[in-house]
């Protein structure tokens, strides 16, 4: 799933490891989500949204709505 996780993380100056630590997941998970190779569960998507204080749809792009531009 296309998402803005990498951009949001970069804006805060966090490494993948930093984000993984905050989300209490592995760095591999963050990498897989950022690169669109893994779609997080709804609970994890909510945790990500709460961490960035954004609604889920501001981070993850609905597959039916296409590109994240």
């Amino acid at each position, binding site marked *: 799933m296309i998402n803005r996780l990498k951009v949001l993380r970069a804006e805060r100056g966090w490494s993948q490891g930093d984000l993984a630590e905050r989300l*209490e997941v*592995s760095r*591999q998970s963050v*990498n*897989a989500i950022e690169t669109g*190779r893994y779609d997080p*569960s709804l609970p*994890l998507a909510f945790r990500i949204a709460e961490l960035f204080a954004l609604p889920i749809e501001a981070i993850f792009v609905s597959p039916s709505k296409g590109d994240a531009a």
Partner: protein
Amino acid sequence: MSRTPAMRHYRTRTIWLALLYALTLCSAVYCFKHQLVSGPVAWIVGTLPALAIIGVFVAIGRYLVEEQDEYLRMLMVRQTLWASGFALSAATLWGFLEAFDLVGHIEPFYVAVLWFGGLGLGRCANRLFGADAAL
């Protein structure tokens, strides 16, 4: 793969089970070779190596229950699906060939060996087909 607490527990359990397997297998082979056991004791001694292998299946199940990282859990599930598909396919194929007297008999416990080999295949598949690529 990450060193999550669940993965550490899984590795510790599998190392102990591998040691237990080696010990029980060597003991069983020695006992049967020298005809030291018979009757119910023979059944128990013959069962012990299998229990160690079954323990590894249980350890994998416990890992899947204990792993809090959903992505890593998904990778292990994929690995076990690959392992199951590989081992069952190979066993089915061999079974038919054996039934038609085209190949010799192989002991069924080799299916477990194939399954463990399939776990390695699953790990390669995770890396090749995207789920764990470039890590």
